[in-house]
């Protein structure tokens, strides 16, 4: 149960690190094929328009232009929507966001492809862009998808109804209410989207690229090309960051590239430059929220009403499941006897919102955690105490009227965070700390996080693993989950090593290739270690069932007494007399033992009632509490984040340095989300902040100097070896903790993130009077 002392752990070197530090790792943009062409997209300049006519004659006539494709040229189904079938690969009638794809070009240089795309003439009937989610929800508003049966712009709708709201308000001694807002966030992975599609001699298409979800890409490519899945082979290349941004979006771009490759029967490469990548790929859903929370004098929650409106953008993509997660997490990990939660995904004429690390949970976290602090303020209580008072304990019903499985670590994350952060000594009531120009504050945020896909995604919540023991004892592992930097290439061999009793050096991972295994689902939702890990345990179990009898026989002992660890096997009573794993492998080979196994693991089903929100929602949860310490410069509005204390119930820490890497990175992204990353657009919805000079990421200067990661290990019910998710829990509380810390420092509410220096300064000035104490 205790924290891992970092000094005692072994150095685990990531197997992919050497190629990355020497520059030898091959990313999609590094792939070169002879006779390769380059793709370009003909982008709509308008956010909303009707396409009257596309004239590609001039572009087609350009020397070196090999193909210009419009919607009419698609051999398969012009459809790439992952959940709802509302998104064409190439627009045939309506363009619904700036940059929507109207035609495709393949040419023999990137520059020529770009110029040819500009030469395609499109006649548009330009329509007024519909950018306001709240207005778009109104009846009789112009429809962004007039082809749908629905006569509104609603993309998704979820609700929770629990208890008796009237009773909840009656029991409350205090009721706090707020309108809150969260901004869009751009992934800004360092490697822009890129792929190469190569038609193979046998008529298959080989798709290589930077992606999270090869099976999504396979489905999208098969759909548009009309090929069976078996003729679409998708291989993940080294991927330079994803964070959700390479979940479903590659399906969109790679399937377009595949259409071109298929049409010209030559390899075609597509890569987006940074500006295009920012303009054309998904963002974290911006939300507008209304919260109303009732509590008793001692801080006990009596009722929560939450309404969250998310901007889906032009196409549904993942909005229904993102908003599902917002819904389930809208009331935090607290006992809420009476609740009414309504969430809406709304179409607008923006580039689609989609997956971004946390997937709807960071927004909900900002909502509920802001309110927890305001309850504390209203009751003059310590916000840490308010969280502890309401935190779910084993057996308590969550807001969805089911007990969370194995939540005994939750309270402990709060207590340990309080202790490690020096909360009791350093926290002060809002605005009651240092005076003068610089104001110090502390903020806390506590979360639960449903692991993997949950109820709406159960149909694809299964994964496999292929393990092959070679005659020399080396072990090859194939899985369907991708390395994005998060460390699956490191952590899964550790699980193999532990499961088989070999060393991690015995294990080599094969590239992720849809030819290796059937659909293992997406690499998202912090599920790769859990899903692949369990499949590995299954495969390893099958192999051991075949190898252990042989080992026992060779060592002249009973199978029950056989121990295999660290690449050696022996009879427990006689550890000195061992044989090596390599010897066992050779003997097994000579005995014709079947030395390969496919493991498969299916997530336990979970439920969610669409009318009441009653359900188990996810098969297990992770828990975390973060504490931020900040210093606000009231003269400039700049916030310095000085320390983050991050306490995570990770179930079991298999690769502690990897967990630290996830947490430190999550803190950085979350700090960016809270303070710096302000996606700006012009009045017609065109993004203005499409490079590193205008879209402000934290640099080394803004790195939080002190990030303490503490792992608690309360074994999870279903994770392999007790593992819980950590990738997304690492970011979810961050922005909320920062926002709470700012509010605590300055004694003013923070209603909106990002809380940029400008917004903070101007708010401070209007509260503190003209000059805002620059004159102090």
């Amino acid at each position, binding site marked *: 149960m205790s924290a891992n002392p970092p000094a005692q752990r072994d150095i685990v070197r990531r197997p992919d690190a050497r190629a990355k530090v020497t520059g030898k790792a091959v990313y999609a943009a590094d792939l070169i094929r002879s006779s390769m062409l380059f793709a370009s997209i003909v982008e709509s300049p308008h956010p909303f328009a009707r396409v009257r006519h596309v004239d590609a004659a001039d572009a087609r006539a350009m020397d070196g232009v090999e193909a210009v494709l419009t919607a009419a040229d698609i051999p398969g189904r012009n459809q790439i929507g992952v959940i709802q079938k509302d998104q064409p690969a190439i627009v045939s009638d309506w363009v619904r966001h700036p940059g929507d794809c109207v035609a495709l070009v393949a040419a023999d240089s990137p520059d020529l492809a770009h110029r040819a795309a500009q030469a395609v003439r499109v006649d548009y009937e330009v329509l007024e862009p519909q950018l306001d989610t709240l207005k778009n929800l109104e009846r009789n508003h112009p429809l962004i998808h007039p082809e749908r049966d629905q006569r509104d712009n609603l993309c998704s709708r979820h609700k929770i109804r629990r208890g008796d709201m009237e009773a909840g308000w009656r029991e409350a001694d205090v009721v706090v209410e707020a309108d809150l807002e969260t901004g869009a966030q751009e992934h800004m992975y360092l490697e822009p989207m890129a792929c190469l599609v190569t038609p193979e001699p046998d008529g298959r298409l080989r798709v290589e690229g930077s992606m999270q979800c090869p099976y999504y890409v396979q489905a999208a490519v098969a759909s548009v090309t009309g090929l069976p899945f078996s003729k679409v082979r998708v291989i993940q290349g080294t991927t330079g960051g994803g964070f959700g941004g390479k979940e479903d979006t590659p399906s969109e771009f790679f399937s377009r590239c595949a259409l071109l490759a298929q049409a010209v029967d030559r390899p075609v490469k597509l890569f987006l430059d940074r500006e295009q990548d920012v303009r054309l790929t998904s963002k974290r859903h911006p939300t507008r929220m209304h919260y109303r929370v009732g509590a008793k004098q001692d801080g006990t929650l009596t009722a929560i009403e939450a309404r969250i409106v998310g901007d889906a953008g032009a196409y549904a993509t993942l909005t229904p499941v993102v908003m599902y997660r917002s819904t389930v997490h809208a009331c935090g990990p607290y006992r809420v006897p009476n609740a009414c939660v309504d969430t809406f995904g709304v179409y607008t004429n923006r580039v689609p919102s989609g997956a971004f690390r946390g997937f709807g949970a960071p927004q909900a976290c900002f909502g509920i955690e802001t309110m927890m602090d305001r309850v504390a303020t209203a009751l003059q209580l310590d916000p840490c105490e308010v969280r502890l008072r309401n935190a779910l304990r084993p057996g308590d019903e969550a807001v969805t009227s089911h007990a969370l499985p194995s939540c005994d670590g939750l309270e402990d994350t709060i207590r340990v965070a309080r202790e490690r952060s020096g909360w009791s000594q350093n926290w002060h009531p809002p605005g009651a700390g240092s005076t003068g120009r610089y104001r110090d504050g502390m903020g806390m945020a506590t979360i639960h996080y449903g692991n993997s896909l949950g109820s709406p995604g159960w149909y694809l919540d299964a994964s496999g693993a292929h393990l092959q023991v070679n005659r020399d004892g080396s072990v090859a592992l194939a899985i369907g989950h991708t390395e994005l930097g998060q460390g699956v290439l490191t952590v899964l061999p550790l699980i193999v090593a532990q499961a088989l009793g070999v060393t991690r050096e015995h294990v080599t991972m094969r590239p992720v290739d849809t030819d290796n295994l059937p659909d293992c689902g997406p690499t998202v939702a912090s599920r790769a270690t859990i899903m692949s890990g369990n499949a590995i345990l299954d495969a390893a179990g099958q192999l051991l069932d075949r190898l252990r009898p042989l080992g026992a026989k060779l060592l002249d002992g009973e199978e029950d007494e056989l121990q295999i660890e660290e690449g050696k096997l022996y009879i427990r009573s006689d550890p000195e007399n061992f044989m090596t794993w390599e010897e066992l492998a050779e003997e097994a080979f000579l005995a014709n033992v079947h030395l390969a196994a496919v493991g498969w693991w299916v997530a336990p089903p979970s439920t969610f009632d669409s009318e009441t929100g009653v359900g188990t929602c996810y098969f297990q949860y992770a828990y975390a509490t973060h504490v931020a310490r900040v210093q606000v410069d009231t*003269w400039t509005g700049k916030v310095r984040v000085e320390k983050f204390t991050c306490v995570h119930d990770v179930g079991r820490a298999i690769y502690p340095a990897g967990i630290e890497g996830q947490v430190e990175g999550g803190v950085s992204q979350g700090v960016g989300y809270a303070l710096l990353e302000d996606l700006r657009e012009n009045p017609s919805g065109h993004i203005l902040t499409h490079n590193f000079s*205008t879209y402000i990421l934290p640099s080394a*200067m803004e790195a939080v100097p002190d990030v303490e990661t503490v792992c608690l290990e309360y074994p999870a019910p279903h994770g392999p070896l007790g593992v819980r998710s950590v990738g997304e829990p690492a970011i979810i509380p961050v922005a909320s903790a920062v926002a709470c810390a700012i509010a605590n420092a300055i004694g003013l509410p923070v209603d909106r993130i990002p809380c940029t220096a400008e917004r903070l300064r101007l708010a401070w000035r209007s509260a503190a009077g003209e000059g805002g104490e620059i004159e102090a």
Partner: protein
Amino acid sequence: MTAQTPTRFGYLRCSSLEDVFKAVADHGERARIVAGGTDLVVGLQGRRLDPCMLVDLVRVPELHGIEKADDCLRIGAATTYSQLLESDLVSAHAPLLQQAAVEVGSVQIRNLGTLGGNLANASPAADGVPPLVALGAEVELVSRNGTRRVLCENFATGPGQSVLEAGEIVVAFLVPVCHEHDEGFFSKLGPRDQQAISIVSVTFSGRRVAGTRRYESVRIACGSVAPTVVRAFRAEEALSGIELEPETLFRSSRAILADISPIDDVRGSAEYRRDQAVGLLRSGLEALL
């Protein structure tokens, strides 16, 4: 194998001023001078610039070197920010330039970008220019017709616009060396602490009357708050010759509002810029006192 784009324009590497003059004369308006290239290459990539000839003057000897002559530092226009930062002469005689140089871009940009290029581009957000203005530096412009000197504060006439005439080259800066009682600061508000374009910058230079809180010869220059880097004459007036007291600094600093005319853009609103121009001036002065 060669790179895959067709020739878009020509390139001339010049090793003498005469080479530059000839190239510019031959190609007229569509000749484009390139020094460090940090702005130009971005423009070429985005095709916002479409020259017919790039004229590279970074190897022209006259554009290099930092030397002290009489009461001035002569700084070659092709001096990079890194070279400014490493120069003992600059550190001794014009430290304000180094205060600004360290806040330009990143190490990588400071190794390429030149002081001359920063002035010649006439961006209101240039960080190299305000200290030149505040120090009363002159720029030496050379053409086939001769040499003239212009005060740096009079160089830019609008965003991307300057007094530079056709065929004229920015060759060197003449920066008055500082006096023992000269003090100053370059203060920048950017969205980040490095690798950031200024939202506002304020540069102050003044001569402290020994043993007092009084400054004379005050010159203040502001970036990103007007179509060009501007002198803040009203603020200079308000802060010159009087005893500066912490209690009145804010009020005196507000004089800068009469000197600036910021706009709203993607980096910040006019309102925030006004607020911060006052704040930067006030906090910079407080740190000096």
